[in-house]
């Protein structure tokens, strides 16, 4: 049962990453593209967590934690650059 639900979750997350790529390509403004990248990072975290359940190892959570931190910092850096023209003033 775990395997079937993990297969469903992987398919759903793959479809949502494709939707994020669609928004990333057609996004009318830069902020839409930043939002699409942020959502893509969150989807990647979900994919890593599901992969950790599938393979039965707890080692992937470190990767998920790193993804969460790098995704947040990159989103804030992009927005800061748009707002101020500089990341670190």
């Amino acid at each position, binding site marked *: *049962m*775990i395997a*079937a*639900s*993990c297969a*469903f*979750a*992987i*398919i*759903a*997350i793959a*479809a*949502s*990453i494709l*939707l*994020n790529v*669609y*928004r990333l390509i057609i996004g009318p*403004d*830069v*902020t*839409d593209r*930043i*939002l*699409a990248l*942020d*959502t893509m990072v*969150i*989807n990647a*975290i*979900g994919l890593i*967590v*599901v992969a*950790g*359940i599938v393979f*039965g190892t*707890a080692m992937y*959570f*470190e990767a*998920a*934690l790193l993804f*969460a*931190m790098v995704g*947040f910092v990159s*989103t*804030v850096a*992009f*927005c*800061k650059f*748009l*707002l*101020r023209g500089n990341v670190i003033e």
Partner: protein
Amino acid sequence: MAAFIEMASAAFIVIGGAFLFVGSVGLAKLPDTMRRLHGPTKATTLGIGSLLIASMLYFLVRHQAVGIHEILITLFLFLTAPVSAQMIAKAHIFRSQELQRTLPLDAGGSGWATLAGQANSPKASAPSAHPVCASNPPRSQSD
């Protein structure tokens, strides 16, 4: 008991995957940037939360141990998702000219702090003594 926990874990995995998909559909289909912010920031934190609860239950059954990584990821994501959403909203307000015309007045009457660096904001158009400050106005503390 173990079979029940595994069933609950499978249900949480399905719920999490469905919520991640719903958030991305909202991101792809909603018509406006401010409306597009709602989909990912709410639904994906719920989806990631369900997936991490499922992972905690699964590793509780399998290894008889509660991992601290899931709690760390949950805490970090729940703390940072509103911050990044607010930063994206501020960048969108800063860049969108037609949105700035429809902004309500702020309580202090000194203009929006997000727009303090722009030429058409009331704070930036005030005369400044120093020429360097006129070309690069100081940012307010509430920014």
